[in-house]
């Protein structure tokens, strides 16, 4: 119970509080014992919950990390396979490495400035020549 009372508290309010507080302080041993048991039960309940949360949080973090790893390793190559035009090569020629390794290859492309220039420079003569060399019939 907080001791700080509003300044305008009346004598009636003070007297009422004194009576109520006295009645609470004079509870029987039986009631106090039961309250004590209830308090212990609640405390034990919280200890159980807190213990469970201690294991749930690391387990959740591990599951999230595992899911991220699976996404990187498994999903990225599959995406590459779906979009890789080199798969349509008619004569079974080897697929260029830059088109087969998915996200890792894309990353290499960004790191290697020279390769990036090659793909973004828009040199149509070179691409036509490269396709003609391998019999590529992909989309124009």
């Amino acid at each position: 119970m907080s001791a700080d009372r509003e300044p305008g508290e009346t004598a009636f309010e003070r007297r009422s509080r004194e009576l109520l507080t006295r009645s609470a302080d004079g509870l029987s041993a039986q009631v106090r014992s039961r309250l004590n048991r209830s308090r212990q039960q609640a405390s034990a309940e919280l200890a159980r919950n807190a213990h469970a949360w201690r294991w749930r949080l690391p387990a959740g973090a591990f599951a999230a990390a595992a899911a991220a790893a699976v996404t990187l390793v498994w999903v990225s190559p599959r995406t590459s396979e779906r979009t890789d035009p080199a798969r349509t090569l008619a004569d079974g020629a080897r697929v260029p490495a830059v088109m087969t390794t998915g996200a890792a290859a894309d990353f290499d492309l960004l790191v290697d400035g020279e390769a990036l220039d090659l793909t973004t420079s828009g040199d149509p003569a070179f691409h036509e020549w490269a396709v003609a060399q391998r019999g590529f019939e992909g989309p124009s």
Partner: protein
Amino acid sequence: MVPSQGGDGQVTETTETRPRALQEFLRSIEKRAFRIAQIQLRHQDDALDAVQDAMLQLARRYGLRPGAEWRPLFYRILENRIRDTQRRRKVRARVMAWLPSRTDAGGSADDGETALVEHLPDRRAGPEDLVDLDQAMATLESELRQLPRRQRQAFLLRNFEGMDVAETAQAMGCSAGSVKTHYFRAVHTLRDRLRDFQT
């Protein structure tokens, strides 16, 4: 440490210290909580059950919340539990009103809970209680029971439990303005009825 007082240190509390903090908090309020429940339910065992349920609910659902939030949450749970008990009594009273034995006895169930409560053992009837509680307390308790529920609730939380307006509003699930209105009316009604308390 009393978590109900709030503070930045509570954020860093570990899971090991929370049960101990909760226990300290419950120890600091349990007697007044019991009296608040008992005044409204007029039955010792029902009041003890209500307090026990409120303690367990607080631990299960809000035990990991900051300690400063515990007190209004606890009293909100307790008030809901008290109301549930009163509703169950009303239903029981209505059912019993249809039974022949009750009708023959001349008991009227029009006033719902009151009809049943009259037959509950009165806490003040025991010799131990007669020693502990003087006439003034008995009169105050009786007048408190006659107040409308919200006024009684506001008076007990503000005056007896010592909660501020914001905490009381949170516990009652209403605005701060409503708390002030309920409390003001409760004080004036009680003061008019209990003029002897002024001195």
